[in-house]
């Protein structure tokens, strides 16, 4: 695939040929001669590529699936393609050659031919002087000169990496077009490189940052659920608003402009939020979609078996395809919607299917795509559902209903139990058992109900640590949220270490009063079992926000999602979160700047701030921590690990706060 780094020295060649072995041979040979080669296997793709990138030469096979070589050649010339075109064909007769050359090709090579001959012809064609000097691409005062690979903004040069250059060139060449991550990967990364979506996001962010620091803001926009697109250049926006406010005097106009842009940001957010909400409902309808797909699959199977479709199945399949056309696009599945449209058209033409093979191929492709989507969607646990825009979290409401905390005390001391029961608040439900076996029963027994939230294990008088360790290990593994307190006279490092090898616990000494013991437990419980934890997350990527909202709710963390960093300052006092999650790179305002703003106010001194980012270079890390952040989590991450880290931060900060308040009292 294209190596943009070679662009300065190399001529760009596009091979449109369905014989992949032939492509491989020619591409290797041309690459050795320092040409940049891209290849596609059908005419339609060839057309798309030729529109997106400027090639010095296009090699076209005449017999292509989809759009044939001659038609593509004509289409290219009609579209004013000025590069060279070399036709390849198996037909060695004068008539074919004439048709080929008349369609606008510069040369004609008959297959089979040797690689040497073909590359020699290519070299000869590329030596010819031609009008391929690319026009300079422009976006406001930003200019990209494809022939020199130079990028300038108001005559100041901007240096970009090859990938960033490739991205910018692609966007500038296709101002209206939305590029999905998959399309960008296909265009700018090689077959042997398989970076994830995160890589693209990072490159886009870096590109945005470089453009922004040079003075060009908001060049590329996120189109939610679809990909990225070039924004209209700033002069067009100004022109548009100037038109509407022509009659107003200039002072008013300045005012109006700023109102307009704020209004348009708000509108864009709503549009994106609506698209995001639509995508979020996909899991609710995965059964409906799967059923429609199953009907199509049944039709394909029947068609393959008996070569025809019974009329009922035909009708059902047509309806299923029709419904898929109508619904998939709403969930951002444009490609799948288009595919369904092709299937529907094919099914609706007549009672006899004219091209059953093609139909089966489309259905199988649709199945593949949709099954992948459905698997992904169903993996997201539906602990929370969106109903009329209100999120109901099962775990969360469960906590609210039963604010009771159940405490299991394992102790042979009746005295301790009596004392605890006497002073315990009503919300603490105490159960007592006298040995480890009974204690274990409590956990096994209660599996169907709610297991104990807190365990107080009195090991005073236990000589053998082995069964204790093994019990603690089992219980803490099965119930990671269980809060464990251990009462022991042996306050030595050795004992503490032995216990630490089995679980996370709080050590208590029996010398204190029952009241003190209870206070200690309740203090910790109040940090571990509040009604909810509240995290404010700021990220410009709505997909990330949506995922955080959905996933973190499983651990009782309620997320307030903000895609516009500018709203953070007003949202903070309103929501009073337990923790703030920030993305490092966002358009307009960087996460680090936001973090400094939060820390600039004494009120938020102790508020835990955690960064989420794909970047993990030393400089960024240094900046993040020195801006006052408490933690830095690198993407991609496991939600479970993320939740644990966030909960630890919140709980610790609550404990510290509580202690500070205690001290000041």
């Amino acid at each position, binding site marked *: 695939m294209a190596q943009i780094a070679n662009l300065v020295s190399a001529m760009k060649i596009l091979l449109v040929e369905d014989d992949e072995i032939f492509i491989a041979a020619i591409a290797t040979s041309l690459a050795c001669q320092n040409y940049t080669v891209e290849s596609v296997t059908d005419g339609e793709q060839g057309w798309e590529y030729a529109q997106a990138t400027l090639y010095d030469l296009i090699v076209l096979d005449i017999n292509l699936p989809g759009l044939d070589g001659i038609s593509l050649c004509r289409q290219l010339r009609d579209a004013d393609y000025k590069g060279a075109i070399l036709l390849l064909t198996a037909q060695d007769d004068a008539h074919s050659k004439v048709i080929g050359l008349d369609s606008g090709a510069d040369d004609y090579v008959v297959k089979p031919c040797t690689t040497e001959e073909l590359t020699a012809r290519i070299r000869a064609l590329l030596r010819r002087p031609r009008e391929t000097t690319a026009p300079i691409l422009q976006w406001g005062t930003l200019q990209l000169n494809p022939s020199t690979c130079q990028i300038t903004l108001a005559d100041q040069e901007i240096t970009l990496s090859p990938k960033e250059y490739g991205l910018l060139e692609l966007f500038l060449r296709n101002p209206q077009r939305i590029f999905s991550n998959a399309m960008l990967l296909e265009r700018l990364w090689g077959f042997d490189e398989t970076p994830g979506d995160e890589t693209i996001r990072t490159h886009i962010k870096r590109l945005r940052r470089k453009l922004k620091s040079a003075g060009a803001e908001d060049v590329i926009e996120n189109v939610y659920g679809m990909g990225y697109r070039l924004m209209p250049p700033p002069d067009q926006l100004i022109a548009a608003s100037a038109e509407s406010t022509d009659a107003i005097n200039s002072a008013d106009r300045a005012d109006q402009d700023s109102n307009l842009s704020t209004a348009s940001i708000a509108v864009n957010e709503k549009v*994106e939020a609506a698209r995001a909400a639509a995508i979020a409902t996909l899991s609710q309808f995965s059964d409906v979609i799967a059923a429609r797909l199953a009907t199509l699959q049944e039709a394909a199977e029947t068609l393959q078996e008996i070569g025809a479709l019974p009329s009922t199945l035909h009708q059902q399949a047509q309806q299923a395809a029709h419904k898929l056309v109508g619904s998939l696009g709403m969930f951002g599945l444009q490609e799948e919607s288009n595919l369904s*449209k092709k299937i529907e058209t094919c099914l609706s033409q007549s009672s006899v299917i004219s091209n059953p093979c093609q139909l089966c191929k489309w259905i199988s492709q649709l199945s593949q795509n949709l099954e992948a989507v459905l698997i992904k969607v169903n993996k997201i646990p539906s602990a929370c559902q969106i109903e009329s825009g209100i999120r109901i979290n099962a775990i969360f409401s469960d906590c609210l209903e039963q604010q009771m905390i159940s405490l299991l005390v394992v102790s042979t001391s009746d005295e301790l139990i009596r004392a605890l029961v006497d002073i315990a608040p009503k919300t603490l439900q105490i159960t007592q058992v006298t040995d480890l076996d009974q204690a274990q029963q409590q956990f096994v027994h209660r599996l169907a109900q709610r297991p104990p939230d807190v365990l107080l294990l009195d090991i005073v008088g236990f000589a053998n640590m082995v069964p204790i360790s093994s019990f603690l290990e089992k219980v803490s593994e099965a119930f990671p949220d269980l809060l464990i307190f251990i009462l022991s006279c042996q306050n030595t490092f050795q004992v503490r270490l032995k216990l630490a090898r089995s679980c996370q616990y709080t050590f208590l000494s029996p010398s204190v009063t029952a009241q003190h013991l209870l206070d200690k437990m309740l203090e910790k419980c109040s940090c571990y079992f509040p009604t909810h934890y509240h995290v404010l997350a700021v990220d410009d990527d709505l997909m990330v926000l949506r995922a955080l909202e959905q996933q973190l709710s499983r651990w009782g963390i309620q997320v307030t999602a903000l895609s516009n960093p500018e709203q953070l300052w007003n949202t903070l006092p309103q929501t009073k979160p337990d923790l703030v999650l920030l993305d490092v790179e966002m358009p307009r305002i960087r996460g680090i700047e936001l973090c400094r703003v939060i820390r600039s106010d004494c009120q938020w001194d102790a508020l835990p701030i955690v960064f989420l980012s794909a970047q993990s270079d030393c400089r960024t890390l240094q900046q993040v921590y020195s801006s006052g952040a408490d933690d830095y989590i690198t993407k991609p991450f496991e939600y479970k690990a993320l939740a644990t880290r966030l909960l630890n931060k919140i709980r610790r900060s609550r404990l510290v706060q509580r202690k500070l308040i205690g001290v000041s009292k």
Partner: protein
Amino acid sequence: MTAQRKILIIDDEPDIREVAKLSLKITKHWDIVSAGSGDEGVRIALEERPDAILLDVLMPIMNGLATLKSLKSYPETQVIPVILLTATVKKAIQEDFFYLGAQGILIKPFDPGLLGEQIESILGWTNLNMV
């Protein structure tokens, strides 16, 4: 400030109803009622008197055309503008609907981000009229 509009969505497909509902609530804060069949739609239209109706063309039992005819037969509902929601746009079908008084067509799949805007533009509900 935008006035509170009430929209009725008549579509037999639950996903379309849900997404349209969410979309219009989020982007326009409109009040949304929905019906899964033609006759339910007519009943709700009579009860709720929405400001506009989004009507699916292909529905089992009582299809879009029959529903539109029924809506136009009641004095209470005949003035309510109806917009068709369909994935296929056959010219002959379109003509039938327009003859019966449909205001416009929205093609499925619609963009949940822009559905509200499209309805406003078909019905001429610009924000200026409603300030």
